[in-house]
């Protein structure tokens, strides 16, 4: 399944037969950490079971109401490619796609994600095939330390979906919510422009 497939197309394709392939969630008793290193629910915490689709796979998980999407992805679904740089909506390292819209996962609560489709960096490459954006990031040495890279990729992915041939100013505007302290901004924008040219050619 394409990692960027829209929610509507996903539902059309699978009908009502969406089966939860994984029931993720703390398995240990309350107050004890479980053997995978997944933190348990806090004793007495209020929780709700939600269903969401992550990188094309339906998941169910019992979430604490205070869990953010970012910590849920990282700690409970073991998708650690999404990074937490500030945990307060400043840096964009945790950017993921929620129903194809780039959002700061640190600023979304997990319980709001019931029924939503999430795409993380792990969902960008299918069957070992890198997304053209990922290849362009490699070719242009866009990641230095790499900590902001997943967020940069997801913002760029959303930009190119909406605007396949952006100008350099449009790239900067779309990605300016993604801080890179290594300050490799020029390499990031060059990489996005290169990927857009490549995607454009394939479309034509």
């Amino acid at each position, binding site marked *: 399944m394409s990692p960027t497939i829209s929610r509507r197309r996903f539902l059309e394709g699978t009908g009502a037969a969406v089966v939860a392939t994984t029931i993720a969630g703390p398995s240990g008793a309350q*107050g*004890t*950490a479980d*053997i*995978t*290193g*997944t*933190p*348990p*629910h*806090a*004793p*007495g*915490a209020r929780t709700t079971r939600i269903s969401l689709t992550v990188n094309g796979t339906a998941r169910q998980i019992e979430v604490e109401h*205070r869990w953010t999407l970012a*910590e849920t992805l*990282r*700690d409970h679904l*073991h998708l*650690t*490619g*999404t*990074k*937490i*740089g*500030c*945990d*307060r909506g*400043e*840096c964009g390292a945790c950017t993921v796609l929620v129903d194809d819209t780039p959002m700061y996962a640190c600023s979304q609560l997990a319980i709001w994600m019931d029924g939503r489709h999430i795409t993380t*960096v*792990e969902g960008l*490459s299918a069957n070992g095939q*890198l997304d053209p954006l*990922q290849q362009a*990031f*490699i070719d*242009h*040495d866009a*990641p*230095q*330390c*790499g*900590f902001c*890279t*997943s967020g940069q*990729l997801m913002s760029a992915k959303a930009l190119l979906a909406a605007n396949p041939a952006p100008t350099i100013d449009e*790239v*900067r505007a779309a990605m*300016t919510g*993604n*801080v*890179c*302290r*290594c*300050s*490799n*901004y*020029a390499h990031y*924008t060059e990489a996005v422009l290169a990927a857009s040219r490549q995607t454009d050619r394939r479309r034509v």
Partner: protein
Amino acid sequence: MSPQRASSAGVQPLTTVGHPTPRIDAVERVTGKARYTNDVQLPGMLFARVLRSPHPHARITSIDVSNAHALPGVKAIVTHENGQVVWGSGSVAGGQQYSDEIKKITTHRRYTFNNPVRFVGEPVAAVAATDRHTAEEALHLIRVTYEVLPFVLEPEAALAADAPKIWPEGNLAVNNRNEPQPQVQRRGNVEEGFKASDHVFDARYSTAFVHNAQMEPRSAVAQWDGDRLTIYTPTGGIANCRTDMARDLGIPQEKVRVVCQYMGGNFGNKNQNQDADLIAAVLAKAAGAPVKLELSRKEDYIGMHGRWPTVQHYKIGVSNDGTLKAIQLRGFSGMGPYRKNSGAIAGTELYQCPNVESIVTPVFTNKTVSGNYRGPEFPQGFFGIQSMMDDVAAALKMDPTAFILKNMTRKFRDDTPYTNYSLEECLLRGMEMVRWKERWRPAGTDNGRLRRGLGVSFMAFRSGVGRSNAVARVNAKGDYTIHVGVTDVGAGAKTTMGVIAAEALRVPLSKVQVVWGDTETCPYSVGESGSRTTIMTGYAVIEAAKALMVQIAEQGLPAGDRVLTASSNPNPTVQGAVRNAFGAHFCEVEVEADTGRVRVTRYVTVHDCGRIINPLTASSQIVGGATQGIGMALHEDLVYDRRSGVPLTPGYYGARVMTHQDAVAIENVFIETDDGYGPYGAKSMGESSKVPAPAAVSNAVFNAIGVRVKDLPITRDKVLAALGGRA
């Protein structure tokens, strides 16, 4: 994107070195597979959080953790009463934390938890619980009573006779002999120099606290297996971190394993251990379970370290033709309450001058701790002295490039030759690129709403050779493995080591595997700080490869499961010369006279970093450093409330780091050289492009508006005040 490169005579092309090479771990970095410290999850792992002081200076009179302990899920709590460990590299006389001898004599001990607390953000207690929310909740249940003490924030104020004393002996930070003495450098006699001068100028410049602000907030995962400790932590020096942890915890080095496979940025003072590592280890021991300690972004800003703020008073004597006769610097560095590093102010060495006196006084304050950040003492000092010299040139009605070419260093401290000298070539090349001679106009020529300016700065920067280690192995199939104690903080060291090994072994890069980032599998290597990794560890890789090739020549490739192993421990030296990297920066700005807004419209850098090992990653380093320097010049500041001593802007928004929309395209040219030292002639790079950048921006703004903003950052309010003052 490949940068432009100009080769000096004598730089012979090589097979693998010098070709743009994507990182060997690039796929891991773009797929989310790269495993950073906080990605480590261990069975039964607890989560830890730190309670920090809300006061800039206070004595803890009582601390009650009983309610916190009673919260279900809480497994361990440490405070200054039960978890005090000396953090050796947290505060050492003279800020020289890498020396055991100096550690022994230091009197300013910093513990993991101190009483009194001396800055807002200093650790007071730490809690480990089954999940992070319970740990956070528990912090709110700890009751601490403080006796609030008077505080002082600014270094000059801290030296006043009636200033609150942060340490019993006073606020003048001690040197590495524990003496309260400033750092003094002298040659010639400045008073004689001023007498012999036609003009004497003096002025005061200042720089702000700028945080490293690496993207990865600090975390540490500690796991005990009996008396053996494994610590996962973002460190640029796994070997030094291990030594530090063992010393501080009082256990043998062999009992400590340090792992750092990927690190989300370094930018200084991370070639060591941190208090977070020690707190995680103590909590894990107390709880009998692995512990992950996490710092928030705000805690990382105020609880770690950043570039020390400085005040710089210059007095310059010069003759009518612009020849320097005397340079005097009286500088003050704000260190926070602990001496994490030197507090020096560099820059006087950039000029030829017979009479120089530099007196720099590091001072304890109740701000957050200062430490190394990308070229520790250089961007501040280069901003101060090169702004001063730019002002002197303007007063003498000289073109600043003419002033620089007349006065810039030609021998180190006018005495020792450089291993090669390309500073003039860097300047002339940059002048050509920006068409300086046609386009430069005297400061303040523009009078409209939009005022354009052109500024220049230059750098000469340490590039010393030294000891490091590497191990090379080969198996029967001819697969090579290079073991190096680097962690790859983002600069691309892993790939650089692979490229150097492939060149030395005369095999394709695909035949070379690099093993890194784990003290269990890597030899001691010099940590990633001081722009040393390529020069020192890269050289050790060549030596290990050569030794392995000798074995292969003698015995052939090993048979079956056997491997051949060679190790190296070279300690090269430079005789009778000083090894420096050189560079020049040119900055063009537009200043809006009505709003005070400064926009960098063009930025050109020319660097001699010796031979370029990997042009692809090298250009990332140059671009990134220059961009950080522009941010330091124009925006970045940790602002304090003067009445409460509380930092107001800790974080990316508040401290205003550069974003996609702030960043300008940096045009870079490498002047490649090979002076015969280092791996194939490579010199220092990581800090090179940061250090001259604030000065170039400052000089461009001065050229645009004709008035000097002497205090960094050059924010709109200061530009408007400068323009208003002139009208």
